[in-house]
Structures are given as structure tokens and as C-alpha cells.
């Protein structure tokens, strides 16, 4: 259980990090290392060198803007979990974070690391897909942003090419007065990989009619998916109406089978958790007081 030898570099700027990455295809970025180090220890990964970006201040921090909250890639998961600002501006992520690993791994694991790792059952990528976040990526020539939907390609597979560095995640903030969220997950043990996870966010108008709704499912296929729940918009749906819409959408989901859970189990649980997450979100939004009340 010891990693193969590698070189270690601690660049002093993002530009330097990108240069090193551009010059060596086999170099890998290390930030929190909570997933990469076990992979090195088991020799599932054998990079030539590790580029440690965790101390780069330009990649760190939580910035709340009018219509978005931008979380720097090397911001630790525990920092986001503890931040009042992040909790207020991004309640869905706040609900998902306690499901990410364990407290000691969240102390070192980073938001950008989880995004770049692209585990299909991971919670942070699920929230990014559900809310339609943008992933900011830098390389030696420029800095671009890419919608989460295009960023995640498959299991541990992203649109990042060698030489790129994920530098921040921009989560949109909903402006509505009455917003509610829900998050549910099923795994073998608390904090283990999710068989299925569901994240939902809805907004209601003053008459409790839905004006915006989104539902994301993780763990069932090879990446997190957004489910079409636009049929909810304009209504104040009953629990059965929510259930019908989610079941219809989840019926033909492509789900994966493995030792832990069959595809049909995953589909069934996905529908159930999706309904629960949406129901929670509606209840929470209804308890928020609107502008006119």
C-alpha cells in the first residue's frame, strides 16, 4: 500500500501550475488528496509528478455575488459546510455536504477536487448538475467556463484536458423569495458511496404555485443527471402529482448494475428519493414567507 515514486511540485501561482501541467502529460494535480492518495497507494494511478495547488490563494474562498456564489476549487468542503454565507446562499449544497465522506475527510477534501474527480455517486457534482453550475477552468492560454452538464462526461471522466486546472465552481443563486430544497441518499453505510442520491430545489410564488423546479439524480448511471420536472411549473402539486411526474421521468432512466445494487433497484430508489427530495423542497418553500405576506 505504498505509492510508486513521483516528483512533487508546489507552484506559487496558478500560471506556474498550468505551465507545469502543460509540459508534462503525466502530471496530476493534487489538492486535498482524499481520493487521489488512496488511488496512488493502490497504484491505480501512477502520475510522474504531483502539482500541489492547495496553497494557491487565487483558487481559494467563497464569494457571494448577486446571481451566483463562486466557490474556489481548493476551498475545503468543511469550510463551505461551516460558512454561514454559503449556507444562506446555497442551501442545497449545505444539505448535501454532510453526506460527503466523513468529517475528517471533509477537513481536507476540496470542492474543486470532488468536481474534477467526477465520481458518478458524488454529492457535490450532483448539486452542480442539479443547479446548472458553471465550472471555471484555466490553462496556460485562457480561462473558460463550462456548464456542469457538459463538464461531466462519464465515471471519473470530465471535459478537462491535460494541462487544464479546475479553478472555481459558480453555482447560480435563485432570486425568488420562497425557495426550498431537499436532499436524500441511500448508501450501504452512512457516508459511503451513494447507490442513489437525489437533490431538488423549487421556488414558489405568493400563491404557492411553483415557478421554478429542478431535480437531479446521482449514483444511478455513469454521471449525475437532471430530470425534467418542468410539468410542476405553474401548479401547487399534491404529493401524488409530484410522484406521478417523477415516476414517469425515472421510468426509462439508464441505470447501472453492480454488486451492490441492480439497475431496477436503482431506478426504483431513484424515483422514491426524487419524490422525497421534491416533497421536502415544496414543504420548505411553502414555509418561507413570500414578499407579499
Amino acid at each position, binding site marked *: *500500500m505504498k*505509492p510508486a515514486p513521483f516528483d512533487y511540485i*508546489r507552484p506559487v501561482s496558478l500560471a506556474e501550475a498550468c505551465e507545469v501541467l502543460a509540459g508534462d502529460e503525466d502530471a496530476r494535480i493534487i489538492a486535498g488528496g482524499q481520493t487521489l*492518495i488512496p488511488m496512488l497507494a493502490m497504484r491505480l494511478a501512477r502520475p510522474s509528478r504531483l502539482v500541489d495547488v492547495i496553497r494557491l490563494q487565487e483558487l481559494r474562498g467563497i464569494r457571494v455575488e448577486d446571481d451566483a456564489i463562486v466557490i474556489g476549487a481548493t476551498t475545503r468542503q468543511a469550510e463551505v459546510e461551516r460558512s454561514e454565507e454559503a449556507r444562506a446562499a446555497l442551501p442545497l449544497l449545505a444539505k448535501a455536504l454532510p453526506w460527503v465522506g466523513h468529517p*475528517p*475527510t471533509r477537513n481536507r477534501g476540496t470542492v474543486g477536487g470532488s468536481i474534477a474527480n467526477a465520481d458518478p455517486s458524488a454529492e457535490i457534482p450532483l448539486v452542480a448538475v442539479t443547479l446548472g453550475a458553471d465550472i471555471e477552468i484555466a490553462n496556460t492560454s485562457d480561462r473558460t467556463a463550462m456548464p456542469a452538464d457538459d463538464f461531466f462526461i462519464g465515471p471519473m471522466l470530465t471535459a478537462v484536458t491535460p494541462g487544464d486546472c479546475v479553478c472555481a465552481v459558480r453555482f447560480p443563486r435563485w432570486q425568488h423569495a420562497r425557495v426550498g430544497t431537499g436532499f436524500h441518499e441511500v448508501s450501504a453505510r452512512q457516508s459511503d458511496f451513494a447507490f442513489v442520491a437525489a437533490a431538488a430545489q423549487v421556488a414558489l410564488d405568493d400563491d404557492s404555485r411553483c415557478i421554478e423546479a429542478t431535480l437531479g439524480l446521482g449514483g444511478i448511471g455513469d454521471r449525475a443527471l437532471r430530470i425534467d420536472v418542468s410539468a410542476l411549473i405553474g401548479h401547487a402539486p399534491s404529493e401524488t402529482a409530484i410522484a406521478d411526474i417523477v415516476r414517469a421521468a425515472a421510468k426509462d432512466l439508464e441505470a447501472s448494475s453492480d454488486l451492490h445494487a441492480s439497475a431496477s433497484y436503482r431506478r426504483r430508489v431513484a424515483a422514491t428519493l426524487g419524490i422525497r427530495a421534491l416533497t421536502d423542497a415544496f414543504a420548505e418553500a411553502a414555509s418561507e414567507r413570500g414578499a407579499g405576506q
Partner: protein
Amino acid sequence: MKISLKVNGQLREADVEPRKTLLDTLREDFLLVGSHAGCEHGVCGACTVLIDGEPSRSCLMFAVQADGYEITTIEGLAPAPGELSVVQDAFCETHGLQCGYCTPGMVLTAHALLEHNDAPSRDDIVEAISGNICRCTGYGQIVEAVEFAADRLRKTNLPRHARSDANNPGKPPFGGNDALGHGVLTAVQPDTPRGGRA
């Protein structure tokens, strides 16, 4: 690569290969073997140390990454040679350890929890130690140990009259259904039908 870090308050230096974990460096270079190697890939928590006060797995960090950080290992908790910290003592009192393999990680995790929160609920404690595996105790006495330590820490700063309940056998020293002494008074009443229970 040369690194220097503060371990238990002392500046230590070492020349390590980049692939050497902080855990191996603590054990082999600094001979601090209280941090245990269990799984060496981040699953068991036996290697937990405090990095800048926060519990982290030392097998999931290379020593070169820890350069410049402050590390606390189990060897750094006791106030003086031959003494035990409040948390360590509570583990002894409540039989919170058997083989002891998980114990350094458990104690450090509990220590960090109580630094932030001296009145943790049972759920807070369970969540805090959820990343530490114990194959012996069944966790009951470990949770009890942390509750007990929290209770003692809270009381150390109280004037004597305010802690008079410590000697009152009717009132357990800390709350919760698993508290020491819970149910003892109602369950044991000899010479009455069904032990006096309703």
C-alpha cells in the same frame, strides 16, 4: 525533499521522499508510533492526527504536503508525563477501549470535537467519530467516554456548589439513555413485584 513541521509544539525537520505519507513520517522519522496504520487508504481512521487542530487522516497526506503545518498526535495530548488528558482519562473510566488500536484516532477526534463544542449531543458525537472504525467496543462505551469527558470539561469551570449533582446518585452525571446509571434506581427494588417497575 526537506520539510519542517511543528509536531506537538516542537519544530521537527525531516528529509523525506515525496511519496512518504505523513503517517509513515511520524512513525518512522519521528518515532511517534501512537498514530496507528490500519488500512493506509483512508477508510479506518486509526491514523487520525490533528492538522492545525482539525482531525485528518495522516495516511491521506504526504509529509511534503504537511510542510509548515502544526500537527498534534496522541503523544501530544497528555498535560505532563505520566498524566492523562480529560478525554484519555474518560476513555479509561468508561472502558472506551479494548485492544486500543482505534483509540488514538478516537481520542484525537473527540478532543477536537470538544474544543469546538463542550456540550455535544449524542448525534454530534456519533457524527464526529463516524469516520473512525472500532472493531472491539461496539462504540457504546466510546460515545459514553466522550459524553463523560464533555461533562467533566464543562464542570471544571463551575464553582463547587453548582456541581453538587456530581455526587447525587439519583442524577446521572450526563444525559441520554445510555448514561451511566440510567434506569438503575427504578429497576432494582428488591422484594417488590417485577423489581418495582410499572
